[in-house]
C-alpha cells in the first residue's frame, strides 16, 4: 500500500503542493534536454546524409572544446579562436571525406560504423598528443556568454535561473532554427535532403555526394563546437566529456535516427523526464536514477516503437 501511494499519489501531491520546486525541475530538465538534443542532432545529420552512425561524434565535441581553449591560450582572441576551430573542422571534414568516406562508399553500414570507431580513437590519440590530457576550463566568459544566476519569485517560492543555462537554450534554439532554414531553403540544404533520401537519384540530378558529405561533417562539427562550449562551461573540459555524448543514444532511439525534430523532442523528453523522475520517484528506488532512466525509456521504445517517434519506418520486403 505504501509503495502504491509512493508511486501514484505522493509525487503528484508534491508537484501540486510545491509548484515552484516542480517548475525548477522542469526548467533544469529543459536545459539539459536542449543540450542532449544538440548532441543527438550531430548524430542525426551524419546518419541522414551518409547512413553512418558516427561513433566519433562525442569526441568531436571534446576536440572542439579543447581546440578552442588551446587557441585562446596561445593568445588568439576568443572569437577568432572560434573561427579558427571552424576552419579546422572544415579541414577535418574534407580529410574524412577524402580518406574514409570516399573509399568506403557503397560498403556495408557496419564497415562504415567501424571506421568511425577507428576515427574516434585516432582523434583521441591526436588530441591528447596535441592538447595534453589535463582538464581545463572553458572560455565562455571570454566569449561574452553571461554567467551568474537570479531568482525569479514564482508560485510563492522562487525559481533559480542560471544565465549560462538561458544562453545555452537560446543558442540551441537559434542553431536549430538556422539549420531548419538551411535545410528547407538553400540549394545546399535541398541537396543534402536529396542525398539523405536516395543517393542514386541525387547523383542523377547532379548533386555531388562528396561535396555534401564534407558539408554535413562540417555542420556536425559546428554543432559539436556549440555543444562543447556549453557543456564545457558547466563542467571542465576533458576527455570525460565524451561520455555525455552517449546520452545521445537513448535520445536517438526515442526521436528516431533520421529526424532533426526527433533529436530535439527526444532530447527534451529525456532531459525533463530524468529530472522529474529523479526528484519525485528517485527516493523510492534509491539515488542514481538519472543515470539509467534514459536507457530504460529507450529500451521500452526499442520493444514497442523501434523506429522512434519521428523516424522512418523501415519495411523490408520479404
Amino acid at each position, binding site marked *: 500500500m505504501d509503495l502504491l501511494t509512493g508511486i501514484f499519489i505522493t509525487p503528484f501531491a508534491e508537484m501540486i503542493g510545491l509548484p515552484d520546486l516542480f517548475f525548477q525541475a522542469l526548467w533544469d530538465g529543459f536545459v539539459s534536454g536542449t543540450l542532449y538534443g544538440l548532441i543527438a542532432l550531430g548524430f542525426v545529420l551524419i546518419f541522414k546524409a551518409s547512413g553512418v552512425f558516427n561513433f566519433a561524434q562525442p569526441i568531436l565535441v571534446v576536440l572542439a572544446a579543447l581546440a578552442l581553449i588551446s587557441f585562446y591560450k596561445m593568445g588568439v582572441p576568443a572569437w577568432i579562436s572560434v573561427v579558427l576551430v571552424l576552419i579546422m573542422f572544415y579541414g577535418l571534414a574534407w580529410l574524412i571525406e577524402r580518406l574514409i568516406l570516399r573509399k568506403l562508399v557503397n560498403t556495408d553500414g557496419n564497415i562504415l560504423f567501424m571506421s568511425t570507431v577507428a576515427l574516434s580513437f585516432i582523434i583521441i590519440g591526436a588530441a591528447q598528443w596535441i592538447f595534453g590530457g589535463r582538464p581545463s576550463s572553458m572560455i565562455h566568459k571570454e566569449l561574452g556568454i553571461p554567467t551568474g544566476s537570479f531568482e525569479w519569485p514564482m508560485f510563492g517560492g522562487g525559481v533559480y535561473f542560471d544565465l549560462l543555462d538561458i544562453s545555452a537554450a537560446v543558442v540551441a534554439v537559434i542553431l536549430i532554427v*538556422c539549420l531548419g532554414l538551411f535545410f528547407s531553403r538553400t540549394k545546399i540544404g535541398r541537396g543534402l*535532403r536529396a542525398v539523405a533520401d*536516395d543517393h542514386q537519384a541525387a*547523383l*542523377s*540530378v*547532379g548533386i*555531388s555526394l562528396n561535396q555534401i558529405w564534407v558539408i554535413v561533417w562540417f555542420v556536425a562539427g559546428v554543432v559539436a563546437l556549440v555543444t562543447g562550449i556549453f557543456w564545457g562551461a558547466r563542467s571542465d573540459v576533458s576527455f570525460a566529456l565524451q561520455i555525455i555524448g552517449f546520452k545521445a543514444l537513448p535520445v536517438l532511439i526515442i526521436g528516431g535516427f533520421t529526424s532533426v525534430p526527433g533529436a530535439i523532442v527526444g532530447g527534451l523528453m529525456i532531459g525533463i523526464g530524468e529530472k522529474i523522475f529523479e526528484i519525485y520517484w528517485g527516493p523510492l528506488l534509491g539515488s542514481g536514477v538519472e543515470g539509467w532512466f534514459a536507457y530504460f525509456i529507450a529500451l521500452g521504445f526499442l520493444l514497442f516503437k523501434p523506429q522512434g517517434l519521428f523516424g522512418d519506418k523501415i519495411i523490408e520486403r520479404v
Partner: protein
Amino acid sequence: MSSEQKKVMMEVKNINLRFGGVIAIQDVSFDIQEGEIRAIIGPNGAGKSSMLNVINGFYHPQEGEIWFRGEKRPSMEPYEVAKTGIARTFQNIALFKGMTTIENVMTGRQLQMSKNFFWQLLRYGPAIEEEVKHRKRCEEIIDFLEINHIRKSPVGSLPYGLQKRVELARALAMEPDLLLLDEPMAGMNVEEKQDMSRFIIDVNEEFGTTIALIEHDMAVVMDLADRVVVLDYGKMLADGTPKEVQSNQSVIDAYLGVAH
C-alpha cells in the same frame, strides 16, 4: 524525326565492361543522333541497364570511348554527367520518397540554382525571383505530364505508374539534351503504357529532347523508336530501324530462344 540532317550527339565506341570475371558488355559501339528516339533492347541480362549506367557515369568501362557532342568524354562521375545535360530515370524508380511531387521535380532544378546562399536562407531579394522562376517551370512540366492532382502528395505513397511519371518529370525539369529512360513502362498496364508512350513522343517532339530508352515490350519499341540497338549477352546483335531489326535472323533467334 523529320529533319534530314543527322547529327550525331553521342557515340559509344568499343565499350567493354567487366565486373570481376563477369563480362557485362563486350565491344559494343553505336551512336545516338540528335533529336531521335533510340531504343536499346535485348533479353534479361543483355547489358542494357549496364550500358545506360556507362553513359550516365555510374559504371566506368575498362575499355572504350564515349564521344559526346563531338568531343571525347573523360571518365566522369554521375553528377558531372548530369551537368553536361544528360538526365535519366531508373528501372526501380529512384525518387526522393520523403518529398512531395513538386519537391521532387524541384530537385531537377538543382543545377540551375545559383549559389546566393544568404538570400536563399533569408528568402529575400534575388532568391525569391529565382525560386518563382524555377517553380513556374516545374509547374509547367507537371501540367505537361498531367500529374497536377498529386503535386502535394508525398511520392512514397503514390501508385507505381504515377511514381514513374514523377521521375520523368524530375528528369525533364533538368531540361536535358539527352534523356535516358530505363524501362519507363515496366510493370504498367496497357493504358498506362499508352499514356507513357504518348508522353515520350511529346517530350521528343515538343522539347526536341533526344531520348535513349530501354524497353522490353517489342510492340512499344517498334512504335516509339527511330532506331534500335539489340544487345544479347553483352554483345551487339543488331543496329537499325525497327523494321530492319525485326527481320534480323539473329534477333529473332535471341528473342525466341533458339539454341545458340
